[in-house]
């Protein structure tokens, strides 16, 4: 990745339908081992809300408490379920994105200073984005 290459919003194309849909919507972002924080942000938004349009603006406030995404689960159970669910989906190919949703990177459960922000410790959606950025970087991706 050339230095200074900025992350771009996902390319224009048809809007996504549902995960697993055969519709060839083109949410494909940066190819290879390069990804932008912007695209990670969109992918996480799409993970929580499949009606999210990656071509449009970001719609989930980074300050949103992570507990707000767990319907009917106590926060502890919600975190465990999120940890497993997002890691199971990570390598799953999503036609709408024309790629695995999180390219198979594995989100951590525990935190390690400057290396990992564990899902056990995140407090907000913004923390989850930061966790994902560190995770991508750990797995060799260049995040711009």
């Amino acid at each position, binding site marked *: 990745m050339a230095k200074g290459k900025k992350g771009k919003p996902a390319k224009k194309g048809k809007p996504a339908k549902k995960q697993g849909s055969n519709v060839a919507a083109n949410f494909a972002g940066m190819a290879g081992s390069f990804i932008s924080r912007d695209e990670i942000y969109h992918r996480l938004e799409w993970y929580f809300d499949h009606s999210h349009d990656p071509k449009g603006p970001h*719609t989930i406030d980074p300050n949103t408490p992570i507990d707000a*995404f767990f319907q009917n689960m106590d926060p502890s159970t919600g975190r465990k379920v999120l*940890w497993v*669910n997002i890691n*199971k989906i990570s390598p799953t190919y999503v036609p709408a994105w024309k790629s695995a949703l999180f390219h198979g990177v594995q989100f951590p459960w525990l935190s390690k200073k400057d290396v990992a922000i564990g899902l056990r410790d995140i407090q907000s959606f913004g*923390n989850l984005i930061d966790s994902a950025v560190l995770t991508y970087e750990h797995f060799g991706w260049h995040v711009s």
Partner: protein
Amino acid sequence: MRFAVSTALAIVILAPTVGTAETLSAAKYDKNKDGILDENEALVWRLHVQDPVLAKYDLNLNGRLDPAELDRLRADSAASFSDRASSVANDVLFFKNRKIADIDKVASTRPPPAAPAEVKPPKGGCENQQRLFVRRDRLDTYQYREGTFITGFVPKSKAMGASASFTHDDLDRSNSATINGRVSYVIAQNDPMSPCFTGLPDDPYAKHDFRVPSLFGTTVALWTDAQGTINSPRTKNEKSALKGGFDAQAAIAGGPFFDLQYLIASPYAQTDFRGEARIYGVTAAWEPFAPNVRLGGTIGAPATKYLDWFWQLRAAADVKRVDVVGATALTRGDYAWTGAVARLHLTPFPDRSVYDPFGENLFPDLVGRFYADFTVNYYRDFSRGIEALLWAAEVGFNITPDGAASISVSYTDGLDKDTLIKQRQYLVALNYKL
């Protein structure tokens, strides 16, 4: 941690007018050391209290930033720009290219930023982890997670405490005592929420196959549970249950079908408050979670903007032997109940504000106000060859937006396995919860 530090630095540098507490000592502003602040010294002290940036860089205490002090401020600002920019990167992406009016509307009501919070070990180390729980019932123990070492996860204030009451009626010459409580003592625990958990590798990115079920936390606890009333003189409707036993609980993470499963086995002995009943049994329960099929709850946005739903399933087996009935509604003999309870929860006009705070709700006054539950309990007693089917439907309206107060209408029909009493009843209720 880096996030927290850089955020703090950003606040200090970018928000110089933020008020500070009146804790800035006046001692160092007494330049002539006479023990008194003269007018000039008091002026500088107050300026520094008012402006933390000035307080930090005005090293000669003259109340203004001299060229050398400004140079240091510029150097610090340049050096920390990268970290500070990184700390607000998500906010920049969220707010960019938005209309000013929309930004002001959302920004004025958004929650404050939160840094990742690493769990704290119990005071005095893991040996001092909370083991004794005195609560209202099994649900209030929250799988025996201590509320103190993880701020905000399971606050103790949310649990209901045990209660005991005593009534003496002077006219009736009767006494009555009611007890509702459960005392538990954790013998062994490996809770992955606890900093004392030892079941995970140090490397947070250690390879983990999430499609294969794996043990993710266990707890063994002794408990005694008292629920009921005892009267003197004894009345016909006196009912009480005094149980003692232990819970063996395991969480299973991952697997091809479910993301999380709880398995709970609870052998117990039961009597009543008079010590007359003699009942022994064991309950085994299974609670699965699969948010992709909205089982056990969901992660993410409502199913549609008009209706949201999820369902719950708890399968259980309850095997018990009743030797002496005592003050219970049971009959003598063996019970072997196997079955499940399933509940469908419907929420018309769900709240979508989390997923688009800039958007408009179709029916803002109806968001989160209505709900409907449909519950089916089905158990079969194989030893007696009897079935217990109990179903209930409830619709409700939340009087307050947070659902703390609601009014509901419910209909229940069927046989309750715990009492073996046939039910067919309507209930209009005013509900309140804290």
